[in-house]
């Protein structure tokens, strides 16, 4: 399975994402730079976490307007699978590929810890290897993960099963509305989530709860 990782100045989780995709798919991903206007034919495009453009203006705002993101939008429209993690999620909402916005954590503090996630919809291309309602562990590390959407958008997300992951068992680290940790677009091929599944994919990480997400997205059998 072929994958691509988007690189932007200020991202710092790109090596983790490349390592995870290499281990899980068996093939190192190609990398695409911010000024690239085309993305090679791949099955999965990942936008890693970090602090693109220093979080200037708003997290992900400048990155979302770079040429490579037009290419990501074109591929997403063609049906290619896209995952944005942490800053990658912020970039996807700023680019308009996912609805809503990610705001400053209500605690005003950067949170770096492990949280529990409930698989709120196991019937997506990102979660089919999980059980419905399954609780998994993942690390989070962010300052602006407080998901917000207006009432109409929120009702639509909830009604259409677009809320894919929710913070579980009182571990919401950022004040996110309805405990939302990850959402998909209407078409179901673009996922954004604040937690870092790429950091929990093998025993050496202390667990592999995040692995099934990539296996699902890459269509890899268990």
């Amino acid at each position, binding site marked *: 399975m072929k994958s691509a990782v988007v690189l932007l100045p200020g991202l710092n989780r790109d090596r983790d994402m490349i390592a995870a995709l290499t281990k899980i798919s068996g093939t190192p991903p190609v990398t695409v730079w911010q000024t690239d206007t085309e993305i090679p034919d791949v099955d999965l495009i990942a936008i890693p976490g970090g602090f693109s453009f220093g979080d200037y203006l708003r997290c992900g*705002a400048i990155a979302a*307007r770079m040429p490579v993101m037009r290419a990501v939008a074109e591929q997403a429209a063609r049906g290619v699978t896209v995952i944005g993690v942490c800053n990658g999620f912020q970039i996807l909402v700023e680019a308009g590929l996912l609805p809503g*916005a990610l*705001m400053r954590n*209500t605690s*005003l503090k950067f949170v770096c810890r492990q949280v529990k996630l409930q698989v709120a919809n196991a019937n997506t291309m990102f979660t089919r290897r999980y059980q419905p309602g399954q609780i998994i562990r993942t690390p989070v590390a962010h300052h602006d993960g407080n998901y*917000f*959407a*207006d009432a109409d958008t929120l009702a639509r997300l909830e009604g259409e099963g677009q809320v894919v992951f929710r913070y579980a068992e009182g571990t919401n680290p950022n004040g996110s509305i309805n405990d939302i940790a990850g959402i998909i677009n209407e078409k179901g091929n673009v996922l954004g989530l604040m937690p870092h599944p790429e950091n929990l994919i093998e025993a050496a990480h202390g667990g592999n709860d995040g692995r099934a997400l990539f296996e699902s997205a890459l269509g890899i059998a268990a």
Partner: protein
Amino acid sequence: MIKARITVTLKNGVLDPQGKAIEHALSGLGFGGVGAVRQGKVFDVELAEGDRAKAEADLKAMCDKLLANTVIENYSVTLI
């Protein structure tokens, strides 16, 4: 040359934890009777454009495309 000031503020109903923290800090400094505080952003922009109507239209486009996230923020443009 035209100078403009753009003000970006959070929409009503959008939680502003930074504004809340500032509100509490003001109370802590002894400023009684401070109601809600909402934090926003100000951009001072210089344009080579001479036509004020064109400048205003351009500035609004800049807000829609980059300076404001209209999911959560309102903006206003003032030519100085």
